[in-house]
């Protein structure tokens, strides 16, 4: 409670942005990850895997995607200076990322409606390749902000560097980390999407492999942070939440691996989601109170408090409609993933077949 009352409206909006970002990673991120497994589908069950993936994300991807828009809208309304700094200094990766968003979003739907097998395969590639590239760019943008390079370029004024702000080891490592974590989440979720034993095992193996790989990539990111993103690196140690959050993240990571190993898929999903949420939470708190370090924090060039208050009120009222609607959506289309041991209803999760 004291946390709530001691929060300024600006911090409230920032917290809401973080929650929306986490939701985007957990939901929209997994849709990217599913595209990664689509690209990597091999072996006798490759087609069955692709089918499963298309069926799993079809009804929800458009809703999952809106979280990203919420983050952007909150950012430009609440913190216009930070928004313009990011959009100016990271113009190139953001533009490339948007091209990826457009390609995969449209290819995903074209695939369901085109007729010939050759055309379907082509759309599949337009869906799966951008699914790999886009998260890397998204991660690179977040990583670049943490290095402070964009913030410094903004302060320096003058010509805007097109590549120097983000084509560096640390942002790219964060990009790979994002890709890895999205693929991991997707594999964990997909184990719950089918009752076919072999398919399940396929995704279980993928989940385990990506969980272990994730540990390695996390280590590289951590090492690079020391030299490239000192502010965040120090923040990780400085904040009083730092240590508990890190231990909890590690604990959930191990729990996820153990439960996957033991085929407790429901528990594995919860552990993987908490692990991801805590990683983002930890990264954000270690950057706190900066939005675009080293210069722009929650107060620099922020909107006046009245705007933040109104945003929070709008978010509160909107949630009253949004949350029940989301629950309904997931109950209708993801209900089977909660009813363990029951045959999922695998028929007709396709757009109307008139």
């Amino acid at each position: 409670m004291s946390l709530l009352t001691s929060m300024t409206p600006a911090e409230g909006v920032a917290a809401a942005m973080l929650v929306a970002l986490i939701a985007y990673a957990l939901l929209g991120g997994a849709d990217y990850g599913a595209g990664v497994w689509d690209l990597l589908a091999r072996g006798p069950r490759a087609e069955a895997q692709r089918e499963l993936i298309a069926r799993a994300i079809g009804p929800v991807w458009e809703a999952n995607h809106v979280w990203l828009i919420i983050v952007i809208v909150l950012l430009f309304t609440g913190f216009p200076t930070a928004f313009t700094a990011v959009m100016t200094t990271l113009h190139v990766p953001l533009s490339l990322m948007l091209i990826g968003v457009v390609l995969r979003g449209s290819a995903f739907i074209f695939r369901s409606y085109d007729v010939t097998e050759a055309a379907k395969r082509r759309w599949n590639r337009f869906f799966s390749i951008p699914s790999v590239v886009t998260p890397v760019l998204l991660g690179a943008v977040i990583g670049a902000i943490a290095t402070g390079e964009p913030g410094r370029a903004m302060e320096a004024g003058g010509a805007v560097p097109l590549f120097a702000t983000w084509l560096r080891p640390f942002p790219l490592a964060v990009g790979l980390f994002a890709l890895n974590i999205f693929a991991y989440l997707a594999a964990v979720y997909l184990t719950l999407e089918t009752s076919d034993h072999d398919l399940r095992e396929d995704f279980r193996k993928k989940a385990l492999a990506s969980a272990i790989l994730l540990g390695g990539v996390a280590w590289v990111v951590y090492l690079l942070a020391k030299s490239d993103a000192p502010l965040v690196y120090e923040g990780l140690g400085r904040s009083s939440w730092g240590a508990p959050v890190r231990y909890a993240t590690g604990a959930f990571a191990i729990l996820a691996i153990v439960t996957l190993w033991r085929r407790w898929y429901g528990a594995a999903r919860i552990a993987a989601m908490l692990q991801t949420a805590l990683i983002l939470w930890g990264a954000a708190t270690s950057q706190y109170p900066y939005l675009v370090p080293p210069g722009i924090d929650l107060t620099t060039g922020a909107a006046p408090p009245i705007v933040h208050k109104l945003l929070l009120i709008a978010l509160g009222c909107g949630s009253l409609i949004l949350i029940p609607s989301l629950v309904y959506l997931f109950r209708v289309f993801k209900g089977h993933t909660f009813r363990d041991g029951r045959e999922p209803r695998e028929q007709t999760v396709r757009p109307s077949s008139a």
Partner: protein
Amino acid sequence: MADADAERRSLLFFENARVMTNLMAARLQMAMSLGFHIIFAAIGIALPLMMAISEACWLRTGDPVYRVLAQRWAKGAAILFAVGAVSGTVLSFELGLLWPGFMKLAGPVVGVGFGLEGFAFFTEAIFLGVYLYGWDRIPPLAHWLAGAVVAASGALSGVLVLTVNAWMNTPAGFRLVDGRPVDIDPFAALTSPAMLAEAIHMTLAAYAATGLLVAGVHAILLMKDRVNPFHRRALGIALIVGGLASLLQPLSGHYAAHVVAETQPIKLAAMEGQFKTERRAPLRIGGLPDPSTGETRFALEIPAGLSILAYNDPDAEVKGLEAFPAHVRPPVVVVHMAFQLMVACGMAMAAVSLWAAVSWWLTRRLPTGRAFLWAAALVSPLGMIAIEAGWTVTEVGRQPWIIQNVMRTTDAVTSVPGLWISLSAYTALYAGLGVIVVLLLLHQFRVSPRGDELQAASIKENS
């Protein structure tokens, strides 16, 4: 000394040239992205309404053709929605990627409108998923409700984003101190003077353009298969939605012109090619404005028409472009031509809708004569053309301002170099997407149900 001066001047020249080309590229990219998105957005507002009507007919009458129709429309809607969503996402980034100066000022003032729109998008996307994928999973009434929610939230998201554009035309709800907004009143910003006119006019435009577009498609298909009950019912619903809106559209356009006259006299002058300030100003139909001579030639002039249209008074004085300094005049040729194009399209659409209405009044039947089907087919693209033209009027007519009388477009553009590359990339991308969407939709039409198949379907369902 002279050398340094010359150098400074040439540097300044290059700096100006850079800003100019960047500005050009940014404007073109914005215009292209918005011109692309608005087509899908308009369909996203109106098509769900038509699907919901069709499904309601099915629920009431039990006639399976209506269900097939709603499902067929939903198939098209799925493609169009996906492209609408991704192109809209691009737009929300582009506001910052291209116009950081604008967003710094506008973000806090109008952001709450965008924020509310975010929730409208959310409800729309959620229930669209339920609608498209839930045909056999949830009870029919719940399914219909999901469709109705999509229709309502689509219209709402359109209205909310329009409040932002209205605010750019008639800014309100803040004071500018040292280039920063203070005393922000988001409600006043949301309800700026142009808001109501734009909201009504654009929402009607979405229904009119989409309704008549769809009607035209079914009219063409009916020409080949005159008794097909599927296309007859489709034509009926599309004509009700599109025709009603098209009949109302000139009235709302008249109101919009009135608001423009009150709030943006210079835009009105450009729309009409009105160079001189005068009482009993004529309404010009057609004509080519010539800024160098300050005359609009070859126009059919209706005496005092403009004074009546804008102020409801034949003796009202209309300000001409000459009443304003040259550096705040918008490009008059583009604005005037675009306005003429929109009005011409609107009149043709209203005429065909009137034909349908009168024919229905007299015979109580849908007009399906060859002549009417041809007319419906011919006007079907006009709504979308009018939408593009109307936006050109609004946006180009506001130049050189990005926020009317507050901020110039030049001061809002990004300093990132090389925007031509991004312009070319996005143009190629959208051109490709447009072609693919059209091809996929054409394919959907080709497999449209034939009359005998539908009869077989309804016999099966009834037995």
